[in-house]
């Protein structure tokens, strides 16, 4: 599903002559289809950068990254959107569209994928129920609590039944009970065959749900497994 061979990532600050900064260095690991990984490490270790790489929001500056059988460094730009539609991403800051209702935010990936409206209504309604927001379908993000917004973000990430689900600190705005509920949902998706990668520094959560982990520090992989 995901394979990294000596992958490095540099951010070159735009418009400056500063030398590029290495945010990820020499990452090599692979995750099989249907696998689950915690992505652990202190703030600034490169967790978000790694998720951006896997979400195809940036391309590796060195090494080889293969996602769902496609070599991301080599493939043409116009081949990437179709690949992205098979990847669900839960952002730390949700990244909901503020002028769209919860329903329309969740429907967005399906509409972008050109699904028929009847199927969209069925899938979105079901997903809203699944995250417990069926009463808030028409609320705008600003009218929802932080936890509710996060659940909308999760619903948007999973509504298209992605093959790969990436989540960046998905429990950051949730209390323990909600975080538990989220983990149950993620485990359920994982059991149904979705490859899941969850970045967190919530150690208690990891302790309650032990699983394989990738540990990052200063852009390097410390441990795997």
């Amino acid at each position, binding site marked *: 599903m995901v394979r990294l061979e000596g992958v490095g990532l540099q951010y070159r600050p735009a418009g400056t002559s500063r030398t590029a900064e290495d945010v990820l260095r020499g990452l090599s690991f692979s995750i099989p289809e249907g696998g689950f990984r915690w992505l652990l490490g202190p703030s600034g270790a490169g967790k978000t950068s790694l998720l951006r790489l896997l979400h195809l929001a940036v*391309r590796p500056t060195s090494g080889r990254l293969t996602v769902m059988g496609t070599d991301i460094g080599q493939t043409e730009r116009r081949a990437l959107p179709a*690949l*992205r539609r098979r990847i669900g991403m839960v952002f730390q800051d949700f*990244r909901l569209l503020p002028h*769209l209702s919860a329903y329309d935010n969740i429907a967005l990936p399906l*509409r*972008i*994928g050109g699904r028929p409206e009847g199927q969209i209504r069925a899938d979105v309604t079901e997903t809203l129920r699944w995250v417990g927001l069926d009463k808030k379908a028409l609320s705008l993000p600003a009218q929802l609590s932080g936890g509710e917004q996060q659940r909308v973000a999760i619903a948007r990430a999973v509504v298209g039944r992605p093959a790969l689900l990436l989540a960046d600190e998905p429990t950051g705005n949730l209390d323990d009970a909600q975080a538990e509920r989220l983990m149950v949902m993620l485990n359920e998706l994982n059991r149904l065959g979705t490859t899941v990668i969850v970045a967190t520094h919530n150690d208690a959560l990891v302790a309650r749900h032990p699983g394989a982990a990738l540990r990052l520090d200063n852009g390097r992989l410390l441990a795997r497994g």
Partner: protein
Amino acid sequence: MARNPLRPARFDDLGLRRALGDRMLPLLVAAMAFLAALALAGVVGVRALAAHWQEGAGAALTVQVPRPAGQEGGKTRLDHVLAMLRDAPGVASARPLSEGELAELLRPWLGAGADRVAIPLPGVIAVRLIPGAADTEALAARLAGAVPGTLTESHDVWVQRLGLLAGSLQACAWLALAVVAAVAAAVVAIATTAGLAARREAIEIVHGLGATDGYIAGRFAGRVTGLAAAGGLLGALAALPALLALARLAAPFAAARPGADPSGLALPAPLWLALPALPLAAATIGFLAAQGTVRRWLRRLP
């Protein structure tokens, strides 16, 4: 419920209804369309006037016969020339001007007593030609050979000069039209770039959800095309009264055309076709400029 809120009626995922407002862009495009309508009127008007002049002057010839009453080959010199003209190929009619008509022609120069002036006046024959069928130069040579002193004056030179002037005016009008179209495209590109900047975050989100460049460019182009078409319509409607007024002013110059509408509400047929084409042209320019701008901008995203 008036509208099913779960239906994507006018679904605006990128929030473009606010990012690309419905005031500034249509008004600017309307101004461009108004200028385009004036330029088009210039093209059409100059072409019609040039055709009219050419039709009138190109088919006419003036023949002067000095000492018209003198004898040549058993007839007066005037009759001799007249007979030759009437037999010549390509001549529709040849008519000697009466002394009264001649005096009328000379009056601006010689005053009311022109017919009593003691200058020997030549006989003047007004000739109408069948357009394209007469060889004026050969005809002039034959007339001068048979009746010495006969002068044949063709209006070709004036027609050529008028044609050149009309051609230059038309080229200027076409150039103005091209500049207006280019400015309209630039206005659309600037508005689209502003919209892209205002909606950068939404675009990145939608891009991350797997939207293709075509999807995002299509959203922008859809909105911009509608606004530009509205602007084009507005400009065309605003230009209509101005063009009707111009047509009325131009009417005396193109007068005596059969079927001309005396009510003053007449526009040349090509303008009636061009005016409705303005919103279409504005929409096309808007669509192409928006698509190009958005696709170029999107290349910065991976």
